[in-house]
């Protein structure tokens, strides 16, 4: 069964015909060719496929493309604007918050959503927010520092 869907990805409206079983992550990577969103465990544990669905971080390996008809999706490609990196992206580079980089797109999406909701998260709040995103290099310390640094850049921190 095919479905006609309308979905706005990183501000651009897309119309597409998708099969019932097509996963959102495959739609993003293979139909839209936005390969910044990674596939990791493919069983909703690791979080590397995290995208924002109507502003909330979700695991796109466990959402059907047909389910997001009429929704807004944001991927890592949409974080920068006008050629300028998002503060969370700058902070990740400045605080060395990535090693192999595999978890990074998902981490960035989760952390950017956290900063939208909470301009000055505590270490505990950051750790809770990223508890569904695994970094197998175990670089959590610098990821937490980067989020705190980004919060300062955005101007929420005292």
């Amino acid at each position, binding site marked *: 069964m095919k479905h006609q869907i309308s979905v706005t990805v990183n501000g651009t409206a897309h119309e597409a015909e998708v099969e019932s079983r097509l996963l959102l992550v*495959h739609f993003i990577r293979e139909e839209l060719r936005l390969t910044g969103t990674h596939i990791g465990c493919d069983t909703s*544990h690791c979080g590397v496929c995290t995208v924002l669905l109507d502003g909330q971080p979700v695991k796109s390996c*466990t959402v059907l493309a*047909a389910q997001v008809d009429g929704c807004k999706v944001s991927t890592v490609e949409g974080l920068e604007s006008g050629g300028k990196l998002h503060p969370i992206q700058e902070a990740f580079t400045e605080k060395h918050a990535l090693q192999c980089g595999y978890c990074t797109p998902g981490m960035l999406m989760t952390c950017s959503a956290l900063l939208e909701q909470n301009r000055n998260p505590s270490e505990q709040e950051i750790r809770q927010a990223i508890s569904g995103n695994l970094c197998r290099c175990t670089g959590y310390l610098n990821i937490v520092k980067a989020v705190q640094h980004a919060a300062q850049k955005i101007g929420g921190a005292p």
Partner: protein
Amino acid sequence: MIPAPFDYHRPGTLDEAIGLLSRHGGDARVLSGGMSLLPALKLRLGSCGHLVDIGRIPGLEYVKEDGGMLRIGAGTRQCVLAQSEVINSRYGVLADAVPLIADPLVRNRGTFGGNVANGDPANDGPAIVIALGAELVARGPQGERTIAANRFYKDLFVTALAPDEILTEIRIPQPPPRSGSAYRKLKRKTGDYAAAAAAVQLTLDARGAVQRACIALTNAGPTPVEAVQGSRFLEGKTPDEKSIAEAARLAAAAAAPSADRRGSVEYKREMARVLTARALKAALERAGRS
């Protein structure tokens, strides 16, 4: 991983959804948040010809107290429950449990109704609704009926719901004064199922003796385990260290877990005992304050 083919349907109303379920019978599954169902389909642990998505049907997402009940719409996402003032102030067992369900990203999609209706004893919802003495509201072609939570779970992934019925609401009786509830869960890491977990609610009388107690265990058998003996043991007694220990021992004796990567049968039963005792103490403390 790609699931086996199915036809996806997104009905706009409950009646339309029930119509689709009636038409496709056992070949259709209800899709709510999809956080258990979609991984199962991807892993090909199950398959179905039709998925009926109730996730966008209006009117299924709410938390409200009225008529002596806490009513939770089955489509209420777990992240919404976690922010509910009513739940955080008066339903300790839910306030304890929700932040321990899976991880924050899963809770952004996963619904409480899905957690309850999926029929997986490893989910946290089933033991909680039993401990709270909840009624589960099901809608089908013949209309609505309510099922007591402790009669809802028949076997592993088998519930009292007919193939053409949808869980629409969880109704929890408002606890009387001097009540407290708590959830204690042991898991290896965020996102894992419980090695063991205990949900309890108790109500004290004016003298401080237990009027009613209910203990239920997560992931301790093919269905959530209502630990009737442990609960009955406490009733009429003024709880102290010794009676709590005995109630926890009786509750753990009712557990029938299976061995897996989370531990042996003996270990899990012992953890069920420890967690039941901790949950009882926390609930008692809350009952004293309410």
